C-alpha cells in the first residue's frame, strides 16, 4: 500500500476530475478495511463494507433486505430481575411524549428567514471552501446552509430507522425480563424519533437525502451481526453516542424553535437509551465474556469510533454542489477541519469515551490506540448512569463551538 500512497497524487494529477474522484474513493474505501487491525473484526465487517461502500446498495431501489441471525430469548419462567433497569422502564413509561401533540407543527419554518434559520451561516465551512477556491454568493450560502440542514436531519432519520430495528432485535435477544420491558419502550421511542424527523423533513424542509454509505455500513453491520452484545454495543453505545454528538451540535446551532424543541425531546430519550446500554453491557462484559471476546469487542468499538469520527463527510453534498469544481479529496479536508465538525466530535467523544470505560472496554492496550487518536482527554468524564436528560441538555448548551473568527 505504501508505494501506492506515495505515487498516488502524481498518478491522479494527469487524470480528469471524475476519474481522480473514483480512484480516490476506491482507495479510501480500501483504507477502511486495511486500517482495521483485528482480522476477526475486519472479517465480520467486510460484507457490510462491501454492500455499503462498493455496491452502494443504499443508493438504489426502495429497500434493502438485511438477513439477521440473532436468536430470540424466550423466557419460560420470567426470571431475570434487574432493578435499575426496571426503574428505567418505569421512567420511560412515565415520560412518553407525543410527537403530534407536544410539538407545534403549525410553526412556520422558513429556512431562509435570517431571524430563525434552521442552520445559521456560522455552521458551514465557508472559509475552508474559499481556501480551495470555492466562492459562494450570499444566496448560494443560504441555500448551502439549508442543504446541510436537510442532509444532517436526513442522516438522523436513517439512523433512527436503524435504531428502531436494532432496539427491536435487542429486545428479542436480551435475557433479563426487566430489560425486555425496557426495550419495548425504546422501540416506541425510536419509532417516534423516526416519525418526527420524517415529518420535519417532509413537511418543513421538503428535501431528503439518501442514506450516507458509511452510516449504512455501520447500520447494516450491526443489524446483521448475530451476537446480541455487538448489536447492543453498536447501537446503544456507539450509534447513540454519535447521535448525541450530532443532535447536540444541531441543537446548539439551530435557531428554529420547532426543531430545537424536537431535538430536546429526542436527546432526553437518547440519554435513557445509552443509560440502559451501559447497564446491560457492564454486567455482560464483566461477567460473561472471555478475555479474547472482550478484546474483540474493544477493537470493534475502536474501529467504529474512528469510522464515525473520520467518515461522515457528507459526500452527498459534495456530489450535489461541487463535483467538477473541486476534488473529493479537497472536500474531505475541508469538512474534517470544519469548526462545526470539531463541535460534533467533541460532543460525541465527551460521552462515548467515559461510557466505554464504564462498561469495561478501555484496557490499557486499547487506550494506547485512543491516545494516538487524541481521544484520551475525555477519560474520567461522567458516564451515562450519572447523567440525566437535563444534565445532557445543559452540557450540550454549555459547549460553545470554536468559531472561525
Amino acid at each position: 500500500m505504501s508505494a501506492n500512497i506515495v505515487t498516488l497524487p502524481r498518478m491522479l494529477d494527469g487524470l480528469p476530475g471524475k476519474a481522480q474522484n473514483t480512484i480516490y474513493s476506491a482507495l479510501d474505501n480500501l483504507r477502511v478495511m486495511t486500517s482495521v487491525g483485528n482480522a476477526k473484526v475486519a472479517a465480520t465487517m467486510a460484507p457490510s463494507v462491501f454492500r455499503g461502500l462498493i455496491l452502494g446498495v443504499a443508493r438504489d431501489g426502495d429497500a434493502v433486505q438485511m438477513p439477521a441471525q440473532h436468536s430470540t430469548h424466550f423466557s419460560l419462567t420470567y426470571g431475570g430481575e434487574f432493578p435499575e433497569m426496571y426503574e428505567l422502564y418505569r421512567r420511560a413509561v412515565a415520560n412518553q411524549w407525543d410527537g403530534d401533540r407536544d410539538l407545534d407543527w403549525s410553526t412556520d419554518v422558513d429556512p431562509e428567514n435570517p431571524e430563525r434559520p434552521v442552520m445559521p451561516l456560522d455552521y458551514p465551512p465557508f472559509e475552508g471552501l474559499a481556501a480551495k477556491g470555492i466562492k459562494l454568493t450570499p444566496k448560494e450560502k443560504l441555500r448551502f446552509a439549508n442543504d446541510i440542514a436537510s442532509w444532517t436531519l436526513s442522516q438522523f432519520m436513517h439512523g433512527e430507522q436503524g435504531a428502531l430495528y436494532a432496539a427491536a432485535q435487542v429486545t428479542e435477544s436480551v435475557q433479563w425480563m426487566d430489560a425486555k420491558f425496557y426495550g419495548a419502550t425504546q422501540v416506541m421511542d425510536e419509532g417516534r424519533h423516526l416519525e418526527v424527523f420524517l415529518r420535519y423533513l417532509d413537511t418543513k424542509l421538503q428535501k431528503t437525502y439518501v442514506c450516507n454509505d458509511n452510516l449504512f455500513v455501520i447500520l447494516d453491520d450491526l443489524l446483521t451481526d448475530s451476537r446480541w452484545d455487538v448489536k447492543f454495543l453498536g447501537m446503544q453505545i456507539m450509534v447513540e453516542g454519535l447521535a448525541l454528538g450530532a443532535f447536540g451540535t444541531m441543537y446548539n446551532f439551530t435557531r428554529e424553535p420547532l426543531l430545537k424543541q424536537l431535538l430536546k425531546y429526542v436527546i432526553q430519550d437518547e440519554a435513557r437509551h445509552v443509560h440502559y446500554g451501559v447497564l446491560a453491557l457492564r454486567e455482560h462484559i464483566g461477567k460473561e465474556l472471555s478475555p479474547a471476546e472482550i478484546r474483540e469487542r474493544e477493537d470493534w468499538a475502536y474501529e467504529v469510533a474512528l469510522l464515525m469520527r473520520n467518515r461522515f463527510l457528507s459526500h452527498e453534498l459534495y456530489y450535489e454542489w461541487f463535483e467538477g469544481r473541486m476534488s473529493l479529496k479537497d472536500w474531505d479536508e475541508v469538512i474534517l477541519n470544519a469548526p462545526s465538525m470539531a463541535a460534533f466530535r467533541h460532543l460525541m467523544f465527551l460521552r462515548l469515551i467515559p461510557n466505554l470505560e464504564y462498561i469495561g472496554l478501555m484496557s490499557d492496550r486499547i487506550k494506547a490506540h485512543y491516545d494516538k487518536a487524541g481521544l484520551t482527554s475525555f477519560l474520567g468524564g461522567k458516564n451515562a448512569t450519572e447523567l440525566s436528560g437535563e444534565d445532557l441538555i445543559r452540557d450540550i448548551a454549555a459547549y460553545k463551538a470554536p468559531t472561525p473568527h
Partner: protein
Amino acid sequence: MFGRHPRRIILPRGSGPAARWKQRPSQTPRRVRVEKIVSEAQDAITLVLVPDDDRPLAFRAGQYLTHIFEIDGRDERRIYSLSSAEGGALACTIRVLPEGRASQFIARQLREGDVYRVLGPGGDFTLDPAHQGSLVLLGAGSGMTPVISLVETALASDPQRSVRVVDVQHDEAHALFHARLRALAQNHPGLSWDSVVTAVEGRPDAVRLAHLLRPAADAQVYLCGPQALMDAAEAGLKEAGFDLQHIRRERFVAAPQHRPRPTQPVPIVFKRSAHSVEQQPGESLLDAGLRAGLKLEFSCTVGGCGHCKVRVLDGEVLLEEPNCLLPEERAAGYTLACSACATTPVTVDA
C-alpha cells in the same frame, strides 16, 4: 435512455407521503432549462430538462411536473408526465394537438436553452414499493408517457419481474416508445407487449381489453388514456373477476380555459379552518387560502388531479372548464379550488 444520473443524492418523495400530515410541498416553482428537444414520433416531442441551478430534482416513476409557460404574456400551466425512468434525466413527452395552446407553443416556439418554471413533481400514479407481484399497464396515445417510465423503473430494480404492456395508438407513425420497449423486451424475458393500432382495427372494446390485459390475481394494473378507454378496460376486468382495488388510473384531462375573474375582492369563509379570507382579483380559491396560510390540499394546480376538491356550502363560484371533476361530484356541490374563484361571498367546507 438519457443516461442515469450516476448517483442518487436526493430521495424522490413526491407529494404523497406528507399528505398524512395534511401538508403538501410548497408551491414554489423551480426553473428548468430545455437541454434537448427530441422528435419522439409524429406529433410528439420530448423535452429533456435540467434544473437551471444544476441541482437534482427527484421524482418517482409515473409522476408529472406542472409546466408554466408564458404564452402571449400570460402564464399557461400544463401537466406533463415524466417519460424517463426514476433516477434518470428529467424528460417529458408531449403530444402536439392541432389547436393546443401549450403544445403548439412547445412545438413552434420553445428552443433548446430556453428557461421556464415547473411545479412538482406530483401525482400518485406510482409503483407501490410494498407490491412485488406482476404489473399490467395500459397506455393509450400520450398515456404511454408515465407507462414507459414505470416499466423501465420496475425492470431496472427487478429484471425478472413479470410485466405486461398494452399500448393503444392511432397508427404506427404516432406510436410512442416502441424502440425502448423493443430494447427492454430483448433483455427481459418477463416483459410481454402488445400493440393495438386503432386506425386498422378500431377501438378495442371491454372484452378485447380484458383479453389483452389478462392480469394475474397478484397483479397491479395501471391505466392511462382517454376516459372512455379506461372505463372500458375497467368494465372488462370487472367482468373477468379482477379485483378493481388493484387498478390505478391517470386521466389526462385538458387544462381549463381561462375565464374572466372578478375585479373586486370577494370574501371567502373556510369553515373547517375557521378562517375568513379576501379573495383578490385574479386569485383562485386555492391561491387565496394558501396566501392566508391555510393547509389546503393540492397537487397539479391545473384542474387535472382532483386533490384540491372542496365542497361549496354557500355562494357562487366560477369553475373553469374542462377539468377532472366527475358529474356526480359536481352534483354533490364540489368544485376544484385551484381552478375556481368566488363570484359572490362564499363559504367552503375546508
